């Protein structure tokens, strides 16, 4: 088996780096429930694809789980009210990645479920396996679509699109991605420890929906507790758990599929091209909730951590709560906080303002101190080739950055700029502190623009 071979060789994929993980900051923190903030702002676009149009009017009262906005496009996912309350006039918010989106604010009603009730509704309670056999594949997919489920690992791709059976590309394996490779983040880890059962059930449902025979969960070997919890929760069901070596970016789809299954996703392709559907653990749990309980995706676990926050926590938060709410719930920023990052420190975006809402794809907030964010002066590239050594995709980042800098798109294409997944390994390792990822990212955008023009 190539997966076993890959693990035996200890080199599950080429390149990669080992930044210090700092997961111990929130490693042991049980998931707490964030009390509903006075206002939640629900963006109408939280996914990759077409934005939704609001179906509610200002001053309208909504219950938790009511549909707020929907779209008729296939690649899209509806959004729902995370809390009961009154809809306000829609405004525009800037998400951490710089996109401006319409948001529907909801004034939170006075009466809200207690934290215990909320936990029981979202992840607690019983998750019977017999529900899996009973569900029709098409019904599963439509339930997922109706619940507005998107990938919760970061890319936020609508899940029903992945699971809709495609006769041209049959799926044989559902891969549950429990590799949380970004340093600091522990939300998936905590979820696997505290709610393994919905993850297992959700994964089995997804497999049934897309016709996959095999369900594999991949967990890095530095969280044995999580893999043990998943194994226990599987409870005799056809659910394998594989431990993978710890390395960044193990959580990237291409890397996880390669490491766990020994299959290589073609450049520019999807896991579907090699018969795999990759689902984040939180996504699996959301699927279980949507199919078995008919509840939409309105809450998620977010890690708030870093040495720049007073009390790091893993929080169950309603989508639409602002970053400021989350930071405040963790005691606020420490005096030496220097940078607040939405997402992980490798691929996340730094925040200038904390008013932005948490979305379905937000996995964590990392607050770094001045000591963590070493201000390194950019120096000349001496072509040491370390970026080439660590690139998990076998690219030549220094050339790509150079091409982007000189707008030499011929060279950029020759060196396969579009294959870059912007994982940040190259910039992390660069001794000259060149902002490689940023250059490549802007280069990709500009190249597309000029090609289109």
């Amino acid at each position, binding site marked *: 088996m190539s997966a076993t071979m890959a693990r035996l060789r200890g080199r599950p994929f*080429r390149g990669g780096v080992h930044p210090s993980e700092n997961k111990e900051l929130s490693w042991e923190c049980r998931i707490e429930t964030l009390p509903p903030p006075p206002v939640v702002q629900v963006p109408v676009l939280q996914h990759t694809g077409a934005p939704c149009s609001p179906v509610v009017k200002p001053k309208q009262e909504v219950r938790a789980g009511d549909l707020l906005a929907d779209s008729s496009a296939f690649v899209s996912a509806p959004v729902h009210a995370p809390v009961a309350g009154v809809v306000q006039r829609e405004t525009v918010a800037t998400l951490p990645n710089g996109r401006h989106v319409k948001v529907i604010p909801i004034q939170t009603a006075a009466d809200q479920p207690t934290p215990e009730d909320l936990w029981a509704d979202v992840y607690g309670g019983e998750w019977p396996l017999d529900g899996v056999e009973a569900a029709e594949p098409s019904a599963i997919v439509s339930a997922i679509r109706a619940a507005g489920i998107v990938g919760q690992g970061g890319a936020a791709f609508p899940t029903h699109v992945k699971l809709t059976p495609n006769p041209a590309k049959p799926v044989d394996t559902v891969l549950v991605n429990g590799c949380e490779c970004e340093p600091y983040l522990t939300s998936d880890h905590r979820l696997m420890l505290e709610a393994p059962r919905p993850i297992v059930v959700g994964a089995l449902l997804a497999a049934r929906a897309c016709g996959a025979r095999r369900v594999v969960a991949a967990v890095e070997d530095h969280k044995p507790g999580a893999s043990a919890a998943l194994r226990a929760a599987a409870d005799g069901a056809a659910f394998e758990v594989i431990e993978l070596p710890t390395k960044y970016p193990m959580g990237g789809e*291409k890397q996880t599929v390669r490491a766990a299954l020994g299959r290589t996703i073609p450049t520019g392709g999807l896991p579907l091209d090699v018969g795999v559907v990759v689902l984040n653990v939180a996504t699996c749990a959301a699927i279980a909730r949507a199919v078995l309980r008919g509840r939409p995706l309105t809450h998620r676990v977010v890690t708030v951590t870093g040495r720049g926050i007073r009390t790091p926590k893993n929080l169950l938060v309603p989508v639409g709560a602002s970053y400021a709410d989350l930071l405040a719930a963790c005691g606020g920023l420490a005096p030496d906080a220097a*940078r607040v990052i939405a997402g992980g420190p490798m691929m996340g975006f730094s*925040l200038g303002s904390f008013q932005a809402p948490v979305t379905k794809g937000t996995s964590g907030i990392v607050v770094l101190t001045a000591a963590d964010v070493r201000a390194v002066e950019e120096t000349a590239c001496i072509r040491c*080739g370390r970026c080439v050594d660590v690139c998990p995709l076998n690219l030549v980042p220094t050339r790509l950055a150079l091409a982007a800098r000189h707008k030499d798109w011929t060279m950029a294409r020759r060196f396969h700029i579009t294959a870059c997944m912007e994982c940040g390994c190259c910039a992390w390792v660069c001794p000259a*502190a060149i902002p490689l990822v940023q250059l490549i990212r*802007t280069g990709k955008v500009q190249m597309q623009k000029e090609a289109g023009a």
Partner: protein
Amino acid sequence: MTRSPHGPVPREAAVTASAPAPVAPAVSVAPGPHLHAAASTQRMMADVLVGLAPLVAVAVAQFRQHALFQMAIASCSAVVSEWLFARMRGRPATLWDLSALVTGLILALSLPAGAPWYAGAVGAAVAIGLGKAIFGGLGQNLFNPAMVGRAFAMISFPAALGASAYVSPSLGIEAVTSATPLTAFKMSGQVTPIGPLFLGATNGSIGETSALAALLGGLYLCFRRTAPWEIPAGAILAMGAAALPGLAGGGTTWTLAHDLSAGAFMYGAFFIATDPVTSPLTPRGKWIFGAGFGLLVAMIRRFSGYPEGVMFAILVMNALVPLINRGTIPVPVGGPAPQTR
């Protein structure tokens, strides 16, 4: 804020958070990744200096004040030239990245003990000027600066740096009273025993005599990943391959081991060919580069008019690096990117 040597990189300005009460400190905004490995150019250059330490030690032990003289002259000239050329272009002189010092030292170690003052001085100035500054400075040079300077000086001053310059009995050092091992073999078929050749009790450029010292320092660099191990490995393998048709070794008493230990081969393979700026980017390219270097050294030693070919081999291979890079663009994991247009 950082300044790129290619003009400012567009970046969002540092923003002070306008946040609610608990958020007091100013936070900065920058593109990811937000963490950075503890590597820097300066540290890499310092590594090279550490790696050169055994060679310097052998040089001083063997050639005493003459070695110190050469190193002082070349290093000073290199650093001063670096400052001067940076001034001429109106750029800040980056002397603290130590690259000029490394260039000067590498050049000095490739000079004979008895070289006159101007050999090192002119060589280092040309190395920095012609080898580096005209290409735009650190990281942009296409040829190894030290070897450009060395070649310029050697062709300029054949009497002071040619094969005969190594024999200067007037220095009062025993090693330099006879020809270098390579010259002795090439001209009169005289074979130096392998022991002294490997340990360094022979004549030669001040830094090249001891293959052992070069090996120690070089392995340190490879271990620190400051030098790619593929290049020396390729060079040694190529030299071994060249021994099969008798290009290396070749004599009944002059073996492959002699060719590997003699002259500047080890020094060049570990310290000069591995200069990251002027070697290929990818591992495959590095193998090709190293192998080409080894083969050229064997060829030049055996067939050209010069007893040693390290310097020329480096320069020729440097010239081929763009073509090697072009031919060894790695295929991304998952195959080449589909051409959209």
